[in-house]
């Protein structure tokens, strides 16, 4: 398998705060990759650095062999990288269907219609709500919508930031199933950030563990799963607990 994405020695800052301290990793074509780590480890920052919503101070991000660090995020999206950000960022006043159409913003009508069929087949709940305003969907439905919207662009690589957050165990199972289907049937390569390490390692082939802005461990999912007993802390397999997940609500600072 070839490398689809390569990250080399990336350092990313929030003002004076160094959130990534020299991260190197790669994602292979066709893989489901899990990125694990405690709160504040820098997982979301790594995804934002890849999608271009944050620009690294140092290091390289390569997608299909081309450097993309510093490329504006809307252009990164057009290259085939779809990020589903933390906290399901839907367009609250647009309908479900309009949200999905926006996902296929750069594609032809026919392609959009075809992808729409696939999304509705995967998420019948969204079909039932297609004319409702997205802001009025349940949390789980909004998560499905965010994933569906990312599918609409027919991405090569999908970056999922904690899709299971705040969902019931049953919905977490459904999301896991979706990830497997996306990867298998739509041949989308997936990079999955999760607090729920058990779920992530169940669906992933390979995993990285991030701690304080550094990669501290990487291995196949099965080896990581065995290591979970000793490395419980890194994998955050303790109680999921209350988390300051609305931390970057002040979106003026998203760049």
């Amino acid at each position, binding site marked *: 398998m070839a490398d689809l994405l390569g990250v080399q020695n990336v350092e990313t800052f929030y003002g004076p705060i160094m959130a990534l301290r020299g991260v190197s990793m790669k994602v292979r074509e066709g893989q489901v990759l899990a990125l694990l780590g405690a709160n504040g480890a820098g997982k979301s920052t790594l995804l934002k650095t890849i*999608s271009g*919503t944050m620009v690294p101070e140092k290091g390289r991000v390569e997608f299909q062999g081309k450097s993309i660090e510093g490329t*504006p*995020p*809307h*252009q990164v*999206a*057009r290259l085939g990288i*779809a*990020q589903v*950000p933390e906290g399901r*960022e*839907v*367009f*609250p*006043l*647009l309908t479900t269907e*309009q*949200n999905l*159409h*926006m*996902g296929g*913003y*750069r594609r032809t009508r026919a392609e959009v219609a075809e992808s729409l069929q696939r999304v509705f087949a995967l998420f019948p709940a969204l079909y039932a709500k297609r004319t409702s305003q997205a*802001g009025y969907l349940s949390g789980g439905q909004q998560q499905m919508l965010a994933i569906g*919207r990312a599918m*609409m*662009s027919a991405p090569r690589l999908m970056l999922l930031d904690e899709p299971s957050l705040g969902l019931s165990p049953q919905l977490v199972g459904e999301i896991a199933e979706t990830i497997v289907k996306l990867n298998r049937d739509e041949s989308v390569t997936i990079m999955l950030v999760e607090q729920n390490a058990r779920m992530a390692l169940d669906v992933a082939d390979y995993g990285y563990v991030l701690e304080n802005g550094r990669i501290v461990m990487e291995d196949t999912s099965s080896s990581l799963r065995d290591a979970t007993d000793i490395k419980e802390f890194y994998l955050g397999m303790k109680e999921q607990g209350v988390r300051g997940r609305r931390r970057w*609500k002040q*979106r*003026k600072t*998203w760049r």
Partner: protein
Amino acid sequence: MDGAQFLQVLIVGLSQGCVYGLIALGFVLIYKATEVVNFAQGDLMMIGMFVAFTFLNVLGMPYWLGLVCTCASMALIGALLERALIRPMIGEPTFAVLMLTVGLGFILRSFASSVWGADPKAIHNPFSGEVLTFGDVSLGFENIAVMVGTAMLCIALGLYFRYARIGVSMQAASQNQLAAVLVGISVNRITSLAWALSAGIAGFAGVMLAPVSLIDPQVGFIGIKAFAAAIIGGLGSLPGALIAGIAIGVIEQFAQIALPTGLATASPYLVMLIMLIVRPSGLFASVQRKKV
């Protein structure tokens, strides 16, 4: 006041209100895209009137062609202004950008008086002086034309924002900027487009206003009333801005008959003040707070 007189005042108020409403739409469009109020909006309309004067009187174009050319030139001017003045200000405090638009207003006014002169002008148009008479009611053709023109423009805008992909993407970008860039929408492009649209609408408003008002470099000050309308409408709502603009036009006309002059002139702002006290978020504030 008898029925006929009432109807006449109402029509004049409605048509004046349509112009306020159109300018208010421009305020809202730019505000939704950039969270900045463009205080030069009224002056853009003034420039639009002079551009129309140039096309119609100087170049002698037919009215409809002149209207289209005015809107197109104004849209271009709007996009250029955004590119030259507003985009370099990304990341600067909102206050700085606001002051920039105030300064832009001054520049546009002195530009207009140096290019076209300060003496009032009127443009050639097919409406002035024509009168529609129903029984003892006679209505100015130019007033009717403003209302019809505004209605058609608003229908076109409504269709654009609901059905055109680029229109929906403008809504999307104003509702959630992060999600918009992640699906590949260029926020810069949306901002340019918002400026182009709102300057184009200002040009349209100018052409609509021209038959009922003389053109001079100070005419853009009616933008302040339109700003009051945009506030009353909720600043984030296009229908709200339009309806509030029309309401202010009507209230103003009736106030001129019923109230002493000073009070009548202040009536749009009184309405705004009352509105800000009673319902600070405006008449039509969208349910969801805008998040950017």
